[in-house]
């Protein structure tokens, strides 16, 4: 057992202590919308796990078209798609239809609880649907108490633990443990980074890495998705 929960997973770096570790494409802002290049960059981190983050609706529509292109094959063993949270124009029912039409190789569709209008509309996604806990800026979906009614309405939905989001609500991370106590059986993957004062994802700080370790040790079996690049070591 390594002393740190996280090791550098870059090619040529230290051997990762965790399997699988992958990246979100959300922090590759300079390549936004260029899915070929985003996937190439993601493959440099891991060929095993990825989250393709389509955070705005136009990006999501572009991703749908890109994934539907003929002969598209992705090597990842864990493929998550982050559903859009910004610039939403599609009616919710239509958005869900498009999420349902994603390729069968998609393992998880991450949806923010505060973007859900009518939970029952998401039920057809079954266990592909994954709800993520929110940060302190959001009005809901932050704690186990706030998430409980959504999971009750969507009994097949999985859970994505965003560790820094939980930290933004409760710096002691007791809240993160409470989320795992409540929804750990549904846990499908973890989002990992640090947050700046505006709750933007930034590279993981050593102090956070240490603070997160007890939480991450309860998540040894699921993919960890980096929402910011690993810091240089």
């Amino acid at each position, binding site marked *: *057992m390594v002393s740190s929960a996280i090791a550098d997973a870059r090619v040529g770096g230290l051997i990762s*202590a*965790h*399997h699988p570790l992958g990246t979100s494409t959300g922090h590759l802002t300079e390549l936004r919308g260029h899915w070929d290049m985003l996937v190439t960059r993601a493959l440099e981190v891991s060929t095993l796990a990825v989250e393709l983050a389509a955070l705005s609706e136009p990006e999501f529509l572009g991703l749908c078209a890109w994934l539907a292109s003929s002969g598209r094959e992705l090597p990842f*063993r*864990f493929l998550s798609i982050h559903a859009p949270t910004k610039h939403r124009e599609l009616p919710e029912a239509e958005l869900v239809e498009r999420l349902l039409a994603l390729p*069968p*190789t998609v*393992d998880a569709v991450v949806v923010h609880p505060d973007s859900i209008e009518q939970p029952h509309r998401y039920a057809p996604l*079954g*266990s*592909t649907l994954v709800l993520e806990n929110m940060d302190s800026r959001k009005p809901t979906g932050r704690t186990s108490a706030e998430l409980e009614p959504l999971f009750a309405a969507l009994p097949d939905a999985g859970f994505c633990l965003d560790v820094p989001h939980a930290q933004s609500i409760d710096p002691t991370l007791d809240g993160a443990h409470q989320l*795992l106590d*409540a929804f*750990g*059986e549904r*846990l*499908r993957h973890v989002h990992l980074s640090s947050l700046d004062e505006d709750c933007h994802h930034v590279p993981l700080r050593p102090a956070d890495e240490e603070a997160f370790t007890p939480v991450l*040790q*309860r*998540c*040894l*079996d*699921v993919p960890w998705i980096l929402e910011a690049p690993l810091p240089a070591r």
Partner: protein
Amino acid sequence: MSDTPHGALERLAEHGRRGFPHLLEARRRTERDLATMQRRLGDVPLDSGASIVLMGSWGRRERTIGSDDDFLVLIDGDERAGARPALADLEGVLGAGEAKPGTQEIFGTQVFVGPLARKIGLEDDSNSNLTRRMLLLLESLPVLGPEAYRDSFAQVIDGYLAGQAKDYRPPRFLLNDLIRYWRTICVDFAGKARADERKWGLRNAKLRLNRKLLFAGGLVPVLLCHEHRRSEQREFLIDQLQAPPTDRLAQAFLRFDAADAGVRALGAYDRWIGRLDDQEVRDRLAALTRSEAAEDPLFREIRRLAKEFEQGLLALLFETPLSPMVRAFGVF
């Protein structure tokens, strides 16, 4: 922490909200059906040193509606004529109708313990001999002749340990044979699928889940032998391997502080057993060809459960104190 794996699944269930309702119900069904079977076989003539052994879902204590009777008549010593019970003595009770054992003539026959324990490796160790020996060790349950069964079981363990075991080392002979068996299952699956696509979906799902449980449930106790002197390894393995594989794995998850991963892994397996207990699900899976499976919602669900199960097993093997043993002995 208890040293025996028996009952570990229930202890692990206390760490989650959902528990393992399908697995525990399947255990209860196995116990009920075993008692019924024992009553029906009560008058069958049994030689000294003979036992009737059930394998497959019986041995894993996870009988569901479509389970068949994978049985062997296990007889001490070398092959001889006239050993009892004869197969004719069991007609109508074991393997009748839908419960007929289905695996390539491996089951439903008399098997003599001498060759089973002696012929390990080389030409004489046929695929059938390997399969019977491994299933006896990994997922077996006596229906009649429990003492003879235990003696036979110990003879097979001895076949691996005698002259081979070392203090505080996993027994390599057994470990290599176990890994060989798992890889043989995988290769044979692919070979069979090339020749005949029928039941591809159901067989693939069982490979991903039931067979993987079988392998991991054997691998963990064999690796844990590194904690024991060679004189203790025999009894340790007998105690471990006679518990259901779900108990063996549950105990390991608990012991290595990986209860969260264990709850998820065995929770996924529990949901699979629940699905397997639905005839419509079995029929749908059995009808699926490989080309249809990728787009099929049911198969996608099962594949997801299988991934969750595998991830938990990998965490147990590679992210707990078992990891050095896997690294030292699992590859070469």
